[in-house]
């Protein structure tokens, strides 16, 4: 049922503005890939190109072995969920969901009883039982989103494309729907491309994450992969907070000033570099050969964690340090920090 989607060096410009500059991406059958990037990076454009709603200036999109340019919109069998739902306002929920089935050519169209049954099954799947006769205006945002999803699933799509499906919802609802969608995907197994600008959402939901920036793919990989081993400074900063240290690589060690702060490097290239360290990868240690001395200047609460801001000599910006299960230092205390994990990028 589900197909593999292959995007081959797609280019797309609007007037003089290059929205996509050569994007290639493989999605395996049944895989859930998140397309993550800041606003304006070209996520929606890429999704619309895969759907066939835009024509590429260069490159092509394959479903399995078939070039999609040979397929009409109907034959692509794509379930598309628009960011703003795009429900049919004058139709009730049941009619919205049945639309794709009723639009089939006469020979392929299921009977009315069959359509009713399918609609009822889908209503159950998206947990909207009992709301069949409501009109879209009478639903909450999360309910509308689920109607849009049910409507897309009704045609038994070969590919599911979701454009910021939770973008317009509040934080609590987003979290609930996230788990629910993950679950739904496990059960239905559609090849899914999922657009979001929320890195937490992408990392939690996706089998793989593709990070888009200014029309180019920066990195594609599993959530662990992209989070722990970002390929570019952009990916590192976009996926989560990071402290940035200017360092110099000599041999297998990185030096901050004349102090070695990270060892065991397999970097071939020496010279100036930027070291990115996430707040949870800084540990307070008593004494260690590779450590960074600093003074605790502030302690704040950040959700479940507490966070210390540590001033380091020679660094304009204070370091953010997560105090998970670590003993909290006192304000003004002199401490030493060890870097447990960092990403090194040669300075541009």
């Amino acid at each position, binding site marked *: 049922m589900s197909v593999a989607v292959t995007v081959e060096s797609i280019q797309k410009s609007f007037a003089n503005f290059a929205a996509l500059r050569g994007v290639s991406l493989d999605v395996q059958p049944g895989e859930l890939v998140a397309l993550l990037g800041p606003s304006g990076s070209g996520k929606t454009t890429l999704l619309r190109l895969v*759907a*066939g*709603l835009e024509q590429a200036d260069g490159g092509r999109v394959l479903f399995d072995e078939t070039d999609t340019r040979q397929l009409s*919109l*109907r034959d*692509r069998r*794509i*379930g*598309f969920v*628009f960011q*703003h739902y*795009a*429900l*049919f*306002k*004058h139709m009730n929920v049941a009619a919205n969901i049945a*639309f*794709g089935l009723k*639009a*089939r050519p006469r020979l392929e169209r299921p009977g009315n009883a069959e359509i009713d049954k399918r609609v009822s099954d889908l209503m159950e799947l998206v947990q909207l039982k009992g709301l069949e006769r409501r*009109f*879209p*205006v*009478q639903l909450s945002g999360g309910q509308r989103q689920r109607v849009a999803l049910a*409507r*897309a699933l*009704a*045609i038994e799509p070969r590919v599911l494309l979701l454009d910021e499906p939770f973008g317009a919802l509040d934080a609590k609802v987003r979290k609930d729907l996230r788990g629910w969608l993950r679950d739904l995907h496990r059960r239905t197994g559609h090849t899914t491309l999922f657009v979001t600008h929320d890195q937490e959402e992408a990392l939690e939901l996706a089998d793989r994450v593709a990070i888009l920036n200014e029309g180019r793919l920066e990195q594609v990989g599993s959530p662990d992969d992209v989070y722990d081993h970002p390929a570019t400074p952009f990916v590192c900063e976009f996926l989560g907070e990071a402290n940035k240290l200017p360092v110099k690589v000599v041999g297998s060690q990185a030096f901050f000033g004349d102090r070695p702060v990270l060892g065991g490097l397999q970097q071939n290239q020496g010279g100036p570099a930027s070291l990115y360290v996430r707040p949870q990868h800084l540990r307070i240690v008593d004494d260690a050969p590779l450590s960074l001395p600093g003074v605790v200047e502030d302690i704040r609460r950040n959700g479940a964690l507490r966070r210390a801001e540590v001033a380091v000599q020679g660094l304009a910006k204070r370091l953010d340090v997560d105090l998970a299960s670590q003993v909290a230092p006192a304000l003004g205390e002199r401490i030493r920090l060890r870097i447990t994990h960092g990403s090194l990028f040669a300075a541009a």
Partner: protein
Amino acid sequence: MTLALPAASRSSSWRQPSILPGFGLSLGITISALSLIVLIPLAALFLKAASAGPADIWAIVTSSRTQAALRLSFGAAAFSAIVNAIFGLIIAWVLVRYRFPGRRLLDAAVDLPFALPTAVAGISLAAIYAPNGWIGSLLAPLSFKFTIPLIDLSIGFDGKVAYTPLGVMVALIFIGLPFVVRTVQPVLEEAEVETEEAAALLGASRLRTIFRVILPGIVPALLTGFVLAFARAVGEYGSVIFIAGNVPMVSEIAPLLIVIKLEGFDYAGASVVAMIMLIVSFTLILAINAIQAWSRGRLGHG
């Protein structure tokens, strides 16, 4: 949609409590203005008509000349409003959806029938559609006649537009067009292109998308435009009389009949015809508004 009010508040007050003060004041102003401008003149009209006495009223109502004039006025108005609904919709669609050189010019031109003095419009149309006019002379050779044998109904076009009921319709279409375009245009502008894309991806044909997705969304606006064009057409006088030819029983519109009666000092007769027009118009408009309210309610704007 109806709002279910708690029983207590429903019994204590017939209007919903509002955070906006001034309901009484604004309703008062509304009713006073409406009375001065609309209701009092209409009441005077009814009084004048009633002064004719039942027998006379009946005679005027049933006179074949009155009936022919009313039939022409309402028939031509309905026909022209339908034509306007169709063409106005297409024009609005083109203006909203396509970008082409001269679009703004076309957009502005739509309003011309509003701005032009109706007499000017009437005289121009009459000149163009007269048998020796630009368009009239082109149409003249196109006459045809077709008779359906058994029921003896003949359909025909004798090549003439000006000075026939067809001429009346041409004038009414001209003056009614802006109403439909200007009511439908903003709704089309607001309509999401994405719903059409959704329909296409769900496998709907272009026709299905138009009739099941696009049109239902603009029906309320289209109905409003239709009503406005119809109402304007029923009451139109200036632009019609020049092109109509005003042959009694054939191309004489009801407003003209009223003027003729007035010029013959038959005030009661004039007001009776006016009253009939008023009643028929009001009933029709009320009915269409009811349909509209119903379809709006379904769209959730109610």
